[in-house]
């Protein structure tokens, strides 16, 4: 401070007696600031207590993350808020205006405020950044923050852990798996493309819920838990998995098996799928309700056929399901239909059974196309009818079955509609 005479001191008003401190940013530029403003930052406060900052020669060195631009913003913030007389409303409205800046500056400001330990400002800016992330699609977020879309093909195709149980992520995973498969089998000729539009505009959730009887869910690992507590797992190399069904309190019985993989794919394969779907539209998949038969047999069968040996399938009691439940995986059939599961041994179906299946397949298709509620009604009423139907050969291989493809294309088209942003 400058030397003053007594006379001077008496005349000088209190404001001029404010003390100033010196701050130095990483680029060595100095700045003089009123002490009361700067001490709003805990970091600066501590430094002052250590004796720093009182003169130009001993400025307070600010952390590296604070550049002159952000420093001036921070000081503005401090200057406003350190005044005690302001109402909460005033402060809030100042804050709202304060954070209106471009994203990059907001990030820098957050970083700087954090290094100065200015917690209220960190919270304010973090909240603003969180608002920019909440509810947005990944593309939007990447664009906002200039994030590189750099998950490698392999990483992306790693199934995402889908704990949000988001159907879009589920379908995304099937899409990735499909692509992974493709990468492996490069060079194989692709089938002819197909046109066709599925007019079904039900939500994916609805449809999938129906497929699952509204009671089972699947995740990216292919682990599906059915209401009967069964765990259906995709085998290594996506060869086989079982579809189980259960009614009432009986144990579940597998009724068919088909080779699978995560079937939903992006544009190229979409066309392939569509064609297949077209061909097979009239022979949709069936779901027949089955009475319990020996479940242990089935389990053993599946084990025999399992490829990678990591197939888990166990039955447990279904509690109080009076509605026939169709449990199926989402893993749709591999486009390369010609690749048969090497271990598959159940190729033959008796014609009678086939007829039954075909009939049920048609039923199913019809039901898929009707209203959700009507469907439920039907199911409930059908349950009474179907119960006595005996099935002696519970395991079928529907790899080449039209129904599987139909299903696949159905879901694919839906995914295209609803999952377009991820494609």
């Amino acid at each position: 401070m400058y030397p003053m005479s007594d006379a001077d001191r008496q005349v000088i008003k209190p404001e001029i007696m404010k003390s100033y401190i010196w701050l130095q940013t990483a680029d060595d530029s100095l700045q003089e600031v009123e002490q009361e403003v700067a001490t709003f930052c805990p970091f600066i406060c501590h430094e002052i207590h250590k004796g720093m900052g009182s003169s130009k020669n001993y400025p307070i060195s600010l952390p590296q993350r604070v550049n002159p631009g952000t420093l001036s913003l921070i000081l503005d913030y401090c200057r406003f808020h350190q005044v005690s007389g302001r109402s909460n409303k005033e402060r809030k409205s100042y804050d709202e205006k304060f954070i209106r800046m471009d994203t990059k500056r907001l990030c820098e400001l957050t970083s700087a405020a954090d290094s100065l330990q200015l917690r209220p400002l960190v919270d304010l800016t973090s909240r603003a950044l969180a608002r920019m992330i909440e509810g947005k699609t990944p593309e939007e977020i990447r664009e906002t923050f200039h994030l590189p879309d750099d998950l490698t093909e392999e990483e992306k195709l790693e199934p995402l852990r889908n704990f949000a149980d988001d159907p879009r992520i589920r379908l995304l995973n099937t899409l990735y798996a499909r692509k992974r498969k493709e990468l492996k089998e490069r060079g194989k000729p692709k089938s002819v493309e197909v046109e066709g539009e599925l007019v079904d505009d039900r939500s994916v959730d609805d449809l999938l819920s129906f497929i699952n009887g509204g009671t089972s869910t699947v995740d990216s690992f292919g682990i599906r838990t059915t209401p009967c507590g069964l765990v259906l797992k995709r085998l290594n190399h996506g060869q086989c998995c079982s579809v189980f069904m259960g009614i009432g309190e009986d144990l579940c019985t597998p009724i068919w098996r088909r080779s699978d993989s995560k079937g939903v794919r992006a544009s190229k394969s979409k066309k392939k799928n569509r064609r297949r779907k077209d061909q097979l539209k009239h022979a949709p998949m069936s779901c027949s309700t089955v009475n319990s038969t020996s479940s242990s047999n089935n389990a053993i069968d599946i084990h025999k056929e399992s490829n990678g040996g990591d197939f888990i399938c166990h039955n447990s009691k279904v509690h109080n399901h009076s509605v026939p439940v169709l449990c199926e995986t989402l893993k749709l059939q591999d486009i390369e239909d010609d690749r048969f599961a090497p271990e598959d041994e159940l190729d033959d179906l008796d014609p009678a059974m086939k007829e039954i299946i075909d009939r049920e397949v048609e039923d199913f298709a019809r039901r898929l196309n009707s209203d959700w509620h009507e469907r439920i009604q039907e199911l409930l009423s059908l349950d009474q009818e179907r119960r006595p139907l005996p099935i002696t050969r519970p395991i079928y291989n529907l790899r080449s079955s039209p129904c599987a493809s139909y299903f696949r294309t159905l879901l694919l088209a839906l995914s295209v509609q609803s999952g377009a942003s991820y494609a």
Partner: protein
Amino acid sequence: MDSAFGHDFISDLPQSIIETILTKLPLRDAVRTSILSTKWRYKWATITQLAFDDKCVTPSHDRAVAEINLVKFVSRFLFLHDGPIHKFTLSTSYLQNTPEIDQWLLFLSRKDIKQLVLELGEGELFRVPSCLFTCRMLARLELVRCEFDPPPTFRGFLSLKYLNLQQVLVAPEVVESLISSCPLLESLTLSYSDSLALTVRAPNLKYLILEGEFKDICLENTPLLVAISVAMYMTDDIAEHFEHSSSCNFEKFLGGVPCLERLIGHIYFTKYLSIGNDLGKVPIMYPRLKVIELYQVSFEDMKEILVILRLIVNSPNLQELHISGSSNTSAATECPDLEFWEMECPSDCTLGQLKTVKMTDMSAVPHEMKFIRFLLGNSPLLEVMSITPSIYVTDGKLNMLVELVRLRRASSQAEIIFIQDQI
């Protein structure tokens, strides 16, 4: 300062900031950040504050589905989470007595959990497992709709500062010993635990909120209590207990709270205090008491008025007073004890700091008017007195006004606001 367009400016912020941002997002969105880029793949997995609620899963028509989905979501999330968990909130209407919650609590008990909030749905009460009582670092515990039964070896939560039990099935002696065994307890909230006779011994307790059917409340050792809010409901049981009680409730309750700043009483609280009240031989002073709010005071019961007077007279620094009348009083024509106001009422008492008075639900009962007169006459710094008649008073309003206008005011600043049509 301007880098290339493609430069990512958020991913390299310190993890503490990223965590702050992710914590301000709903959990689903936080998990979704995992597909943004390589750096973001697992940023979400180390956040230490988890808040699960019904929004974590897609809403479903079928409650069982929602329940299963939520269970899976939480289980998977916890399984993939890495690092300590300091705050865990589960607030759901889908889950009640779900067995998986036990497992989650066991998991959390190994993760240095500090704040636990468990708010479960209606129905069967969830019985808190014994692993909860091994959480040494627990500082905040909130349970809604649970059953609380500590093992005999339980010695208390030594770090617990905040305890909130709502609709919790717990034995009264358990509550008492729990309170006594948490030496750092600062805030206690008990709602709707039935028919407790409660003795509170909590040397560090600052905030006490009680609501429910209490037979008896004794604050035995609460010297630091700053704010009290009590809502006492009445049952026949309790009414009988009141009648036969011989102790002075006022002293039992307010005998040892010298630091009290705020007192709020609902429903039968004033009545409770009035039992055995004798204006005290040695007056207990409340030098810090600034705000008194007493609702549902029956102005026909002289004893309740005595309670209020005792409080007011012994609180020299009282600033705000809200009294709400009991709206089921009929405007009594004959009124006992009216001479009290002339004879015994301390007339030299000055309410030196009283600035705001709100009288609501006034039924124009004579005692009310006398009380208002007392206040007006003894409050030299009074600024606002607002009076709201009860909605049942239709004709009496004019009489009230006539009387009010007559009253002498000790404060020249005092405004009397008569609120007529309060919706």
